[in-house]
């Protein structure tokens, strides 16, 4: 044993001592600094679950609302706002559920509240109910005409632009401005009341555009014509031309 010890070079012995010290310090530090409940249920302190559970509650949850206001709750759940929880509009209300007389939840009546979701914005999906608040009954508060628990519009929108404002504004400056929407989209009356269940049709083939743009079309002379046989026969028209603004490149 002594012979082997002497054979080990001096620098290796010294480095080994240093290595042992580093490893020992790491092991001791690890055992002292790692929280005792770390890793019991996952890569975190198990105690943090309790710490989070102990935090003060602010929201009651819509089931608590339903206990007393089941008529409103059922009405909301049967209509367009069914995916919203009561406290989205009425604010955190655990105090109200604990002491209904002392604390009253918020009832937003301001015109600025509904437009947080319903102001016209290009990023919102088409068909989503949007208004330009400056032009939409500017002096009335929303709840005068719309029941927030059943927000179906009191009157079905007359114009397509009421919901499809972006398309409408683009089309209004295009060469297709005089073509009514229903020329290309067959739209049933039911679409006005139930826009997602009853969708309008869309053109499906090249011949649809060819009604005006083919060389044999019986349409005004100023309308651009193409040879339907030779003009990009493998594509449908709207792969290259945006029908609501056909002059766009």
């Amino acid at each position, binding site marked *: 044993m002594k012979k082997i010890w002497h054979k080990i070079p001096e620098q290796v012995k*010294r480095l080994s001592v240093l290595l042992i010290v580093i490893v020992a310090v790491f092991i001791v530090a690890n055992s002292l600094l790692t929280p005792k409940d770390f890793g019991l249920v996952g890569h975190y302190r198990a105690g943090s679950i309790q710490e989070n559970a102990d935090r003060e509650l602010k929201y009651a949850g819509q089931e608590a609302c339903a206990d007393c206001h089941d008529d409103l709750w059922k009405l909301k759940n049967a209509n367009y706002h069914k995916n919203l929880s009561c406290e989205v509009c009425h604010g955190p209300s655990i105090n109200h559920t604990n002491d209904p007389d002392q604390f009253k939840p918020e009832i937003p009546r301001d015109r600025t509240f509904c437009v947080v979701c319903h102001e016209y914005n290009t990023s919102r999906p088409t068909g989503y109910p949007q208004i330009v608040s400056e032009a939409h009954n500017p002096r009335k508060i929303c709840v005068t005409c719309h029941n927030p628990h059943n927000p179906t519009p009191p009157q079905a929108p007359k114009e397509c632009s009421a919901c499809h404002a972006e398309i409408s504004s683009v089309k209004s400056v295009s060469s297709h401005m005089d073509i009514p929407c229903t020329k290309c989209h067959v739209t049933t009356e039911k679409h006005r009341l139930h826009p997602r269940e009853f969708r309008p049709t869309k053109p499906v083939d090249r011949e649809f555009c060819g009604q005006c743009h083919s060389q044999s079309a019986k349409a005004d002379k100023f309308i651009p014509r193409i040879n339907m046989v030779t003009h990009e026969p493998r594509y449908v028209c709207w792969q290259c031309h945006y029908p609501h603004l056909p002059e766009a490149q």
Partner: protein
Amino acid sequence: MEELIQHLTPILKEVWGYIFPNEIELHWGILIVLYPYLTGLVAGAFILASLVKVFNVKELQPTYRLAMLTAMAFLIVAPLPLLGHLGHPEKSYEILITPNSASAMAMFGFVYAWYLMAVLCLEIWFEYRRDIILWAQKETGIKKWIHKIISLFSKDISEKAIHFDKKWVKIITIIGIPSAFLLHGYVGFIFGSIKANPWWSSVLMPIVFLFSAIVSGIAMVLILYMIITPIRGKELDIVCLDKLASYLFYAMIIDFSLEALDFIHRIYESEESINILAYLVSNKLFISLIVIQLFMGMLIPLAMISLIKIFKAPSDLKKMVYFISAILVQVGIFSTRWNIVIGGQLFSKSFRGLTVYKITFFGLEGFFASVVIFCLPFVLLYLLTKILPPWEEARNP
């Protein structure tokens, strides 16, 4: 709130197209640009040092120890931008005591510790051991004790022990090359593995990072060697400079080819993000990518070095060209990091808009903080050269 509005209002005016609300402000700023830049210099300087020991490039011997100390100085400072950015540096030990092997970022502590302890410290220790022992014998006072402690009170300077040291320097350098690749390849991996970001997500990212690191590391050692040597009143070794410039040139050719490959691959693939990325490159990143990174940082130095090599210029002109090229390369590589880190956050995930990065001057994430962090390695290098002089004349015969 008022402060936030004041901060965001000028940015909002420069937003182009449509972006999501949480994309207005960049989360990774100049400190995160500095981090891959600094780690790149470490890896590059180490690879340069390894050329001497593993590949036996004798001409580079004058820069070997300087390169090792440069790598050390930059490695010690490398985590500071991260600590500054994350805040709570007092909690940083937690990634070591509760290792999370599923997180690339959380494993950084181990990659870093391995590289610092098992590679750099050990190699420097074996390389310097004999000199430290001899210095300690001649010195008095605090310096003697510093050297004694660093040598771990080692005394054996027999022929056999010195031979053992040399053998181990070589072995550690061989282990060190993949480790340096791991350290900087890992930084590239962090970006390359973010699949939600088309500017970053690329398997080539680690390897592109690595070669740009080698470029920047060689250029940095060249700059340091060319500044320090005249200050010390010594002559520059022109053979060594020629060799450094040659390796810089080769590394730049590989780096340029890899970046061009990445670029061509992206254009040929033409994924849905290509339009916004093309817009990003031709607008917000035009100066930093096309002008600084590509022309100033890559093509001009490449052209200058190749002209010098072709026309066999006089040595004074050579020195000037090498120095200017190395400075341009540094600016170019910093710009590369900028374009990756900042560029990757400038476009919206909707692929329909761009935001803008406004750098602040003060504060922990500001311009001055990053200047201080950038200067720190040079201060550290100065201290290291005082304790472990890398100069030829300091070596004991």
